């Protein structure tokens, strides 16, 4: 029988130490990347920040020929396209999530869930392509006239109808963020213990009442988190939007008109930047995007943690 070995500093402890340090170093890379990202963007945006100050955010003037740069049209474009996308995507995503987690039989739910995953997997450039050649023209020819006819009294639905427009971008964005939102929501709903559902049913609840009583309240913070996460995606989406929004730095009331977002303008102009200030202004747009993105993500993560971390908080 082996006795307790009373070696001084065992090899095993050294192994543990090496292992810990290695993984820690790798983990620190992430921290370094995030910090580096922020710092670098700020550093390269500095000339623009110095030149325009706070006015950068409120000016509507974006003119590389005169080296005048204002971000407001892009901020507006980003905000409207994202908001509209969410307006379309959220109800659908919630419906999908409830259908997958509550209504559909498991085998079907798994299959549909996979399809939704595929929807998320399709590269954005493909959506952009499809948007340019299929969705945009279809919307222009079929949806826009309808909207103009019945809701034309709203300034939103007035003016000429073109295929590359805010509306097209929003619809494409909606299709793109929907799977993200529904996936998180499905997870959140599935995280509701079966016992909770059965408890509601055993009290004499109908299926919908069960959802209202046991599923939705349990998942509410997670759902909000998912929506914000989707918003973050919509804000940052670049290529698909750049392809279908028309890239026109203007603020227009009509959704039928072309527009531009922060990301789309960076994608379009970065390589062709005419001056150092132009580049700095573009980087500053990136910085604005980053700050929005960070803020939203921080908010979303805090909420999603609350909803889904529960199941990981098993006692040690």
């Amino acid at each position: 029988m082996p006795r307790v070995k009373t070696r001084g500093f065992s090899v095993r402890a050294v192994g543990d130490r090496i292992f810990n340090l290695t993984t820690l170093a790798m983990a620190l890379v992430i921290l370094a990347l995030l910090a580096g990202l922020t710092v670098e963007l700020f550093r390269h945006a500095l000339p623009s920040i110095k030149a325009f100050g706070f006015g950068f955010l409120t000016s509507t003037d974006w003119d590389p020929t005169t080296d005048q740069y204002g971000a407001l049209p892009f901020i507006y474009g980003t905000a409207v396209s994202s908001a509209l996308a969410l307006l379309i995507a959220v109800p659908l995503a919630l419906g999908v999530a409830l259908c997958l987690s509550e209504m559909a039989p498991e085998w079907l739910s798994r299959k549909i869930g996979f399809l939704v995953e595929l929807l998320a997997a399709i590269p954005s450039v493909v959506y952009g392509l499809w948007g340019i050649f299929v969705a945009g023209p279809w919307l222009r020819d079929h949806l826009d006239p309808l909207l103009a006819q019945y809701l034309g009294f709203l300034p939103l639905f007035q003016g000429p109808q073109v295929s590359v427009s805010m509306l097209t971008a929003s619809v494409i964005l909606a299709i793109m963020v929907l799977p993200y939102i529904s996936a998180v929501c499905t997870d959140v709903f599935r995280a509701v213990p079966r016992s909770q559902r059965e408890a509601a049913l055993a009290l004499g609840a109908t299926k919908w009442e069960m959802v209202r009583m046991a599923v939705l309240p349990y998942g509410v913070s997670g759902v909000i988190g998912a929506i914000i996460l989707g918003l973050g995606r919509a804000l940052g989406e670049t290529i698909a939007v750049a392809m279908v929004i028309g890239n026109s730095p203007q603020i227009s009331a009509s959704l039928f008109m072309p527009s531009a977002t922060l990301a789309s303008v960076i994608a379009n102009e970065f390589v062709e930047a005419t001056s150092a200030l132009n580049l700095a202004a573009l980087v500053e747009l990136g910085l604005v995007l980053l700050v929005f993105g960070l803020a939203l993500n921080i908010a979303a993560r805090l909420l999603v943690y609350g909803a889904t971390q529960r199941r990981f908080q098993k006692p040690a």
Partner: protein
Amino acid sequence: MADNKMSTRDLRAYFHKVEALHGVTLGFAANRVTAIIGPSGCGKSTLVRCLNRMHEVVPGASCTGQVLLDGEDIYAPAVDPVQVRRRVGMVFQKPTPFPTMSIEDNVAAGLKLNGIAVSRAERDRIVEESLRRAALWDEVKDRLKRPGASLSGGQQQRLCVARALAVEPEVLLMDEPCSALDPISTARIEELLLELKENFTIIIVTHNMQQAARCSDFTAFMYAGDLIEFGETRQIFTTPARRETEDYITGRFG
């Protein structure tokens, strides 16, 4: 046993094609505690879940035969399972308070479904009465607004009992209600059974023979989907009629 509150006739339950209950015919006396015992997988939980049509909630589950509640078949085509579950309440193995609701909201959760809008005062009365019946009132009366999840495991289980009682069921099913609890909480729940049976018919599934011995009036012993023996608890535990029951109770299995 003329005054059976519930009874089953040739009840067979299935999971997909697999028959989990092989024709159980059994009566549950009104205002008595009936315990269902048997080894794991003997179908005791399935049986009890057939009694309030919770069995069919599981994907792929179905059953045949009759389950009579006051003489009416709850599986008759015209019967709405939702209504059955109002009359036959259930408490599960793990305590399941709704985590987003306060203690009183938890108790009143079923009332919202009740249809007739209840006044605030009426609601408070029902909450108090249900909590009293579940022997929890004194422990929580000062913190009714606190979340249900803030209670201890045993308290949560009694909260679930109160919630089930608030909709005034006639029968209370308990599916291993103590298996997640420590001995002290278990003893509390067992004592509660004695009080509840004055007003309700109670059916309790337990894998703990001693628990069945301690707190039931009648005991049904199940094995491999069959009802092997049913009788008064004292008879089952002192002079069982069937060899299988005898073997199980005296710890000779397999």
